[in-house]
């Protein structure tokens, strides 16, 4: 099976406090720790496990700039067969629709049976996989948390409310958005990354892919972020500023007053 996984490099929210910068319009980007988007990493692991069961190849692709090569190399170290960086000045400030358009043109240059994306990235939009599926006219399923390969189709379960799962059958080729927790992504150490340091990662631009420039980039974007802001809070938490011991005493007092500690 030929599998494509679309990944993205994002600021790691578990490692960073996201704050506004001096302009108050953007976030402070100095010293941010970046990593591969968490759900995308699960998608790569799932692709590798499927390949190891049924054969084929796993390609990872990202739309971005040269800084994003590091996440592609990380996924090569995990075991992906091939990585491609899609980069062009014409792509800067594309909205979700623009990014999906670029990926659609890339997919159509290849011959993929299965395309995986992470369910959502740092912007929480959860949109690229569904858009890509519709553009390719492939069936799509979101929030996928298990995959079984059958002849010409897959059995997939989707995460729905209350911890329940929805079992579906989906024809290949298809696009799936992968939910975190579907597997246990393998560990990649520095040594693994060094071993793939010399693997070439081709960079493809708009003309290589035949992307119509008026369908991507800032001019084509129907959805634009104006600024970042931190909303003024009317009633946030009452913060305890005592010592650790004082805070613990206070917490126990509050818990006991509400029926705990019985």
């Amino acid at each position, binding site marked *: 099976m030929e599998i494509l996984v679309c990944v993205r490099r994002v600021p790691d929210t578990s490692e960073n406090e996201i704050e506004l910068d001096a302009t108050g319009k953007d976030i402070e980007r100095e010293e941010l720790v970046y990593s591969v988007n968490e759900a995308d990493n699960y998608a790569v692991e799932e692709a590798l496990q499927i390949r190891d069961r049924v054969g084929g190849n796993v390609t990872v692709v990202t739309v971005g700039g040269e800084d994003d090569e590091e996440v592609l190399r990380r996924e090569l170290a995990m075991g992906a067969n091939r990585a491609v960086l899609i980069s062009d000045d014409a792509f800067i400030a594309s909205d979700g629709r623009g990014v999906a358009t670029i990926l659609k043109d890339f997919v159509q240059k290849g011959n993929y049976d299965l395309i995986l994306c992470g369910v959502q990235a740092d912007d929480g*939009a959860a*949109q*690229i996989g*569904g858009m890509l599926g519709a553009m390719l006219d492939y069936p799509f399923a979101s929030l996928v948390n298990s995959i079984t390969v059958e002849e010409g189709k897959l059995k997939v379960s989707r995460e729905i409310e209350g911890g329940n799962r929805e079992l579906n059958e989906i024809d290949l080729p298809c696009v799936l958005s992968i939910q*975190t927790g579907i597997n246990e992504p393998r560990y990649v150490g520095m040594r693994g990354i060094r071993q793939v340091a010399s693997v070439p990662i081709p960079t493809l631009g708009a003309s290589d892919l035949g992307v119509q420039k008026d369908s991507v980039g800032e001019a084509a974007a129907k959805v634009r972020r*104006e600024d970042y802001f931190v909303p003024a809070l009317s009633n946030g*938490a009452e913060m305890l500023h005592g010592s*650790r011991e004082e805070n613990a005493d206070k917490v*126990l007092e509050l*818990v006991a007053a509400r029926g705990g500690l019985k």
Partner: protein
Amino acid sequence: MARIFAYIVHRNGIVDDTAGELAAVARRIGPTTSPTAILTGWGADLEAACNSLRAFFGDIWKIANEALAYPNAELVRQALVSILPSNSILLVPHDHFGIDLSPGLSVKLGSAFVSDVLSIDGLERDSLRLVRQEFGGQVSTHVRCDISSGAVINVRPGAFRPEQVTPISSGVIDKSSAVGTLTARRRFFETIVAEAGDVDITKHSVLVSIGRGIQEKDNVALAEELAEALGAAVSCSRPVVDAKWMEKSRQVGSSGKTVKPKVYLACGISGAFQHLAGIKGNPFLIAINKNPKAPIFQVADVGIVDDVLEFLPELTSKARELRGVAAK
């Protein structure tokens, strides 16, 4: 202005809470417009759901089709594409169904898509200004959406107060015949109900709930010891289950359990909206997190900026003292 539609989620003949919320969103976008509800489904459940909406919507469009008895997003998309007028605004709840439906629907309609909207700032001609969040709710953002060729807008459940009005009712309009044959390349089989766990977190009045801040599996014991000392149970947020540190049955959130404790100790939990959606009944919420910017502090009653790995053992030993239990 563009006509506004709301896709209504319903189950067993009962409409979801988001129905009234979407009515409120529609009036925020166009105060003078009368939004139209769209319901897809089949049989008596669909009829009951349509009839229950008369307080919120003037026009109710019904698409009855046996293939839509279960809301398969691929089929619902085909149905909506065949009945929505061009350049419409469609509002959809941002739940597991909206995530499945809306991005692809916007492509097929040739309209813009905005995901997980929290607030509507206003409409100036064809430019709709909205508020979203990024980075797990750590920052908000203003987004402008060009609605000149229509828009599909996914709205966060619970973000708007439901609005009940007295609409000029033209009642339920049957649009079923406008929908042709529906063919699926993704076929729904069955719903697999979550397994019950060893501990039922929905029955406890005090929960010690842990998140990513617990850092590794061995540290879960810190929460278990505290829970024992407090007479509480341990629950958790999604990353703890993803990492296989606790069973799925302990997860609080929209994809886990809904809990109604009296006290909720959020320990190393950032406070993503999917997690908060599982906390009901307005418990007294105490948050401990080493990131002072963590969104959990916006909703907590009391907050402490500290490392849970240090704070929980302190709390446990003091709780044991209070209850007269000798520390091991």
